[in-house]
């Protein structure tokens, strides 16, 4: 029983990480039709920004408020990069899909190379509060606190995004834009501002995933964003492109399948099962679990 609880909660921790990356990716694709392969870069910037700030930013550090400050710096850096990417590289290329893919793929490769050139290719130990290295006993299972932190963060981010989408004017614009962007424009709304906003939200969530992923894995490396992005894309497709809640459901399914199959089957089999699940969803329900509705 303890093993099942442990696998379930570590699976949910992984799901939380996937959700943080996938939620922004899904909103960006749903609203702006942009397949952003550079989304992993925002995660990398968040992770390295937090790592750098913990060691260099006055007041920041690996513990207590210092760690919160370091994470805030990492998230701010990821958000800023996301906004700049949208304004400088994506905005001139809206409705030019091939060019967008080329630019974002190129940017993701260049971003990894830049991180490698600056801080080296090897994984570096991530500064994290002492309590995140400890475990908490839940129903007989000793669950790592780092995973629990990710779950709590993902639930808070999900709640914040849903509240934003439901209760704010821009949230309304984004929900409408995910359904029919052209009609939003035809009501006199400059939808491009909403594009920038979803990039900022996505960048912030991915950067937070980078910072908390560093806590979860204990290290930070230039390729981390890219490897997580593959599963985030799978989560987005299974959940429904444009749906935040769909991404949450799909992330839970993917995280749990991976964790349980990898444990009870062969290591790596979980990843194959997730790809199989993706194929099944594409065949039986191509619009994903929730379809193209932002808050469904």
């Amino acid at each position, binding site marked *: 029983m303890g093993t099942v609880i442990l696998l379930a909660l570590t699976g949910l921790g992984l799901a939380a990480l996937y959700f943080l990356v996938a939620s922004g990716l899904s909103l960006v694709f749903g609203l702006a039709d942009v397949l952003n392969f550079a989304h992993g870069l925002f995660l990398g910037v968040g992770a390295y920004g937090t790592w750098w700030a913990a060691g260099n930013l006055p007041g920041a550090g690996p513990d207590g408020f210092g760690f919160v400050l370091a994470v805030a710096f990492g998230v701010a850096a990821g958000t800023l990069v996301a906004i700049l990417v949208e304004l400088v590289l994506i905005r001139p290329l809206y409705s030019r899909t091939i060019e967008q893919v080329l630019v974002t793929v190129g940017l993701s490769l260049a971003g990894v190379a830049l991180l490698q050139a600056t801080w080296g290719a090897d994984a570096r130990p991530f500064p994290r509060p002492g309590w995140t290295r400890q475990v908490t006993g839940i129903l007989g299972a000793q669950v790592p606190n780092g995973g629990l932190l990710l779950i709590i963060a993902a639930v808070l981010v999900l709640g914040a995004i849903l509240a934003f989408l439901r209760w704010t004017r821009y949230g309304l614009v984004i*929900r*409408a834009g995910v*359904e*029919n962007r052209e*009609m939003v*424009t*035809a*009501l*006199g709304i400059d*939808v491009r501002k909403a594009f920038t906003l979803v990039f900022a939200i996505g960048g912030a969530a991915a950067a937070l995933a980078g910072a908390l992923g560093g806590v979860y894995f204990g290290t930070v490396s230039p390729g981390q964003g890219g490897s997580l992005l593959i599963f985030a894309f799978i989560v987005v497709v299974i959940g429904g492109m444009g749906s935040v809640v769909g991404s949450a459901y799909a992330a839970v399914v993917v995280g749990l399948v991976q964790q349980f199959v990898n444990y009870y089957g062969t290591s790596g089999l979980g990843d194959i099962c997730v790809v199989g699940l993706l194929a099944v969803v594409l065949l039986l329900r191509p619009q994903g679990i929730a379809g193209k509705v932002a808050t469904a």
Partner: protein
Amino acid sequence: MEPILTVEELSVRISGLHILQGVSFTVAPTGVTVLLGRNGVGKTTTLRAIVGLTPPAGEVRGTIRMGAQSLLARPTHRLVRGGLGYVPEDRCVFAGLTVAENLRLAERRGSTPAYDKVFALFPELDRRGRQRAGSLSGGQQQMLAIGRVLLNDNRLLLVDEPTKGLAPKVVTEVAEVLERVAESVPVLLVEQNLAVVRRLARDAVVLAAGKVAWTGDAHELLLETALTKSLLGVGSAEAAAPSARSELASPAVARKDKL
């Protein structure tokens, strides 16, 4: 009277297809001008070009002016804020949003939304504020699509096939609303239902094969049997005798026909 809209030599190419080939016409500053033609001649393309919604792969040439202001190459949201209201074909309400949210989305910063006017025209929208727009009937969705545009002041309304797919009773209701709307703002209407055209339109522009084939008085056009048959593909019975079609038999439309 100076026209509210002037279209000159408008050409639109989309994906290699030359859909509009030098279309020129004007829209009077009052009343309803109807854009007619068989399916596929470019009526919707014309409205979309005016409101700046030609697909990015498309190419638009010519001149479009609202009053003295050139509209071409200006972004759609600016045109709409400048007083160009657009009710698209197939309604295009946001199915996942409630009726109230659909209306709230159309509110513009700096102006007071005219909810009183909209709810006076469509009391149903007030009652169904919390209902998802996707669960409304076709007629209710059409009312929402028109109501959304009427929340703001407009200098010109572009309305694309508002009665398409609607029940006869609802067609009459929509026609009545458009008639009242046209008393205060000029309308460029794309419409296939000739009873509605007869009731609402003063001027007509007929497109054929991407060009203007005829312009003039709408009622004169509908009386010209040979002309309506050749341009619109309908016979005299359909053009001149509304009772021949079920939706034309509605009391309100029939009453208008007698005038």
